[in-house]
């Protein structure tokens, strides 16, 4: 499994998730087969898509082939952090580190 979405345990899992085709954005800080799953963050004005969440540890955007939902567990390969997706202020998806 190469997708950073490791464990989809959202209570809304019964609803179908939107699928995404990921293109290579030039992110080269992980081995080649994983590169399309990450991209550089453009700062506070960088709007994230429904399949994306920002890693709070290394500030890289994590991208899944599936829509992300609160409760999902994702892996950030550039900094090796395991994260849990949650809803932050304004309804935006955030990631909390699971130590």
């Amino acid at each position, binding site marked *: 499994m190469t997708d950073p979405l490791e464990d989809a345990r959202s209570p809304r899992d019964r609803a179908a998730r939107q699928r995404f085709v990921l293109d290579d954005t030039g992110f*080269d*800080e*992980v*081995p*080649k087969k994983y590169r399309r799953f990450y991209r550089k963050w453009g700062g506070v004005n960088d709007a994230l898509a429904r399949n994306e969440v920002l890693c*709070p*540890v*290394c*500030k*890289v955007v994590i991208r899944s082939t599936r829509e992300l939902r609160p409760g999902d567990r994702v*892996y*950030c*390969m*550039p*900094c*090796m*952090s*395991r994260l849990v997706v949650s809803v932050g202020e304004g309804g935006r998806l955030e990631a909390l*580190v699971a*130590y």
Partner: protein
Amino acid sequence: MSGFLSAYSIQNWLESCPQGYLEDTQYGHAPGQTEPALVLDNPTLLADTIRTTVQLVVGERCALAASSGLINAAPDHASKAFLATQTLDEARHVEIFTQRLYDLGVKKSELESTLAEHANPNLVKFAEVLLEKVDKGDFIAGVVGQNIVLEGMAFSVFEMLQAAVSGVNPKFANTLSGTIADERRHVGFGENRIGSLIKQHPERKADVEKMQKEMAYHMLATFSTQFAQSGSAMQEGQRMAQAAEGNGAEAPAKWHGADLATATPEEMEGVLSDTVLKEFKVRLGRIGIEYQTPAAP
């Protein structure tokens, strides 16, 4: 103990780093890239660039000593293997910033005297606080000092320098890009390893918080003296960047709200200090350590 490292290996490091973003680079940048004439031909800018680069070498020598010293103190093999790759990362950083000093005209025979002449005494004290913990084999304090405080500071400083030079010095911007990528792994290791260890050893919090406060004080003192020395060079750099912009060069970026084309040294010191301290507070808070506000230098 260190499950976050289960997907990490020397092979992973090889594919990400030397075979990834460092592939086809020489001393961290594309072959043939050189320091721009606006730095090499301007005595004020050249002296300030050498002084700034000296601090990078001093900081990276400290990081090399700390990461290599922590290998034998690490309580598990996965952490030892990670720290071995970090040690090579830090040795590379020492080498590329030292090479930059040579590219700026420092003679190899004068390297150590140049470092001794320009090393900021506050940065040296910052390093001494960390290396004292490492020398005692204190893994928890050593990793917090190295991978959260030192690397957290480096992460922000490198990002600020990269934003400042991105339009006028592609060579140095490329060099910094690779070091920032390395720092992502280093801060990730620091947070994830200590995040679990501090839960097992809550009695260590007070000692670690005291060290963080001391290191943060020396860091702020370093910023204060560096920006105080860089006033005329910053003005000169901004003037030349504006002239270059008129000739089609990329405009200097904004960094955390500061306009790098017009910001004064005092403004930049404030923005950098605030940014690094906020990051410390957030990162330390996530792993259960209460950030301690240092005295104003």
